[in-house]
């Protein structure tokens, strides 16, 4: 099911795919928690790292 969900985004830009793969893994791991604490900051770290990575590449 994880692979199937990941496949949904194969048409998206590479950076969006990277972010979503990591975010979905994170959400998957925290699914049992009603209100996963600190997840917003963790997603921000994922997005920032990807956005920063692009900046370094350019």
């Amino acid at each position, binding site marked *: *099911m*994880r692979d*199937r*969900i990941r496949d*949904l*985004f194969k048409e*998206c*830009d590479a*950076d*969006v795919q990277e*972010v*979503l793969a990591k*975010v*979905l893994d994170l*959400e*998957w*791991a*925290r*699914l*049992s928690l009603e209100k996963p604490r600190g*997840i*917003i900051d963790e*997603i*921000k770290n994922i*997005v*920032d790292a*990807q*956005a*920063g990575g*692009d*900046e370094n590449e350019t």
Partner: protein
Amino acid sequence: MKLESMRLYNFRQFYGEQRIRFSVDKKKNVTIVNGVMGAGKTSLHRAFVWCLYGEWDEQTRGQIVNKRAINESPLNVKVETSVQMVFTHAGERYTAVRTLQVVKTSESTWQPLGESGLSLTKITLSGQHETIRNAQNFLEFILPSSVSPYFFFDGEQIDEFVKPGHETKVKSAVRNVLRIEVLERARHHLDAVARDYQKDLKSRASGRLQLLLVTKEGAQSELDDAQKRLEELRTEKGLANKQIEELNERLRQIESVKEWEEKKRGVQSQLQSCEKTRERIWAEVKDLVNRSYVQMSMPVILKATKLLDEKRERGEIPPGIREQFIQDLINRGECICKRPIIEGSPEHQHLARLLQRSVSTYLTNAVVQCAGDLRSLAANTGDTLGQIKERMVEKAKMEDDIDAYSQELTDISQHLLQFDVEEVRLLEKKRKDHQDRLYSIIGDIGRKEERIEVLHRAIETSQRDIEKAQVTEKRARRLQKSLSLATRAHEAVDRMCDVFAADMRKRIQTEAKQIFQRLVWKESQFQDICLSEDYSLEVLDRWGLPARRELSAGERQVLSLAFIIAMARVAGEEAPLVVDTPFGRLSSAPRQSITKNIPELLEQLILFVTDEELHKQARQNLEPRIGAEYELRFDQETGSATVAQLN
């Protein structure tokens, strides 16, 4: 997840250690656990959920720890209960053990020693083992607790899915088993992240850096001009000085003016000397003022010294008896004269009063030290104020002299301007003009130097602000990138969330239809099912009309089973179906249909059945698929159940 074995230890009615090995053979994927009512089938079924998730409601399900084990235990000795499950997942083998300890506190009472604990170990093919640190999270990752009720369930209670008004339950089941919530949560969280970025970006208003750069550029340009002008003024000053010197020289060469020029030179020399002296005196005054704070505080210092002296004269400082001495006497319970000091006695009370009045050794030392320091300070201060007064008188005299010499120079100049030789008058006038210009230039130089200093400071400040703003702008640029990425990711999830849910709903419907058609028996009036957009699970009769309300409890159970298996198959979930009392409500026809078809549809099937559930034909249907079979035997005498292997 594929279950390999289970070990119970003092769990519920299972005294001591009991083991079950589940069939993992693909062709013989059914494990049967037989047991009469009360033999422990439901307890064994609940052991799965307790071991994996720690879920147990003692109020409704009774105590976990075996009563016989507690009864046989001596007082205050720990009694342990545990359930161990060995399973494989994604090619790896794991052992999960949940343990609970109680201690017997009396013949009829016991207390749990904390919460139950879970440990999870991964065992490699080579026999190496590795402890999984966050065991509960890892198990949730493999099979979430929210999904487990669709794999470990009571066969008699699963018909709720198809009861009218249970659309929310069906929707929740689809969302949980197919992890649609993962997408929904990602959508929600990415939206929140994008909003945070937007807010942050807004607070870092752009344009400030531009403004700072313009300000700095303006200040730099003005500084360049000011420095250029300063150089020009310094050149003009040098030129004016040179011209004045040339005119002085020409005037000195005129015989009749020589005497005045010499006098003027002498006065100028005196004037310069006076100005230097005045500067020196002023520097001394400033130094004395800086050191006069002690003199200013002298009245307070003298008053404090007097107070301390008075206390010393009265014998209060230092105190006659030290606090520590009194405390030691009380602690020892005996005076230095060997007289006993008993608590509550007049001696003890007297010492307690003394202790209350006494001052701590630290404070006493500090006060004595302070009194000494103040006296020393007062003695070494000297008459600073008198010295300042003297210097100010000297400075005033020097200023009078400067005024007098200045006036003398003005008089000399005035005299030369009215001199009876025209050349002298002209030269003096020129010299005076140059002198006035020189003063003006010197004033301009002072102002320029001051302005240059201000501009330097402004440029330094601007540069610091620019550096800060550059960091902010850089962060803003990165924020903009992050915002764009988070927004695009959110939009992608948003687009796919509903599409995925709809697709999964359709797949489940198709799969459930196929399963239902395999399970449905020929006498049944119901031929088809559909899962509507609002997650209402409907059944259609042979005429294609909705007939959910007409279903019997057994029919609802078959439909629910078809729905659960369809969900598991669509989700690709590798989990066993563990069903307690699967055929309790079913009549012969559906029972035969289920036993014939279900094993083929699942990876692993574990059934807890009563002796009445598996009739001859149903058993014959299952027989070729049974890989392991057990019987639960309850001993009325000991009140304990045991697990016996049948094949």
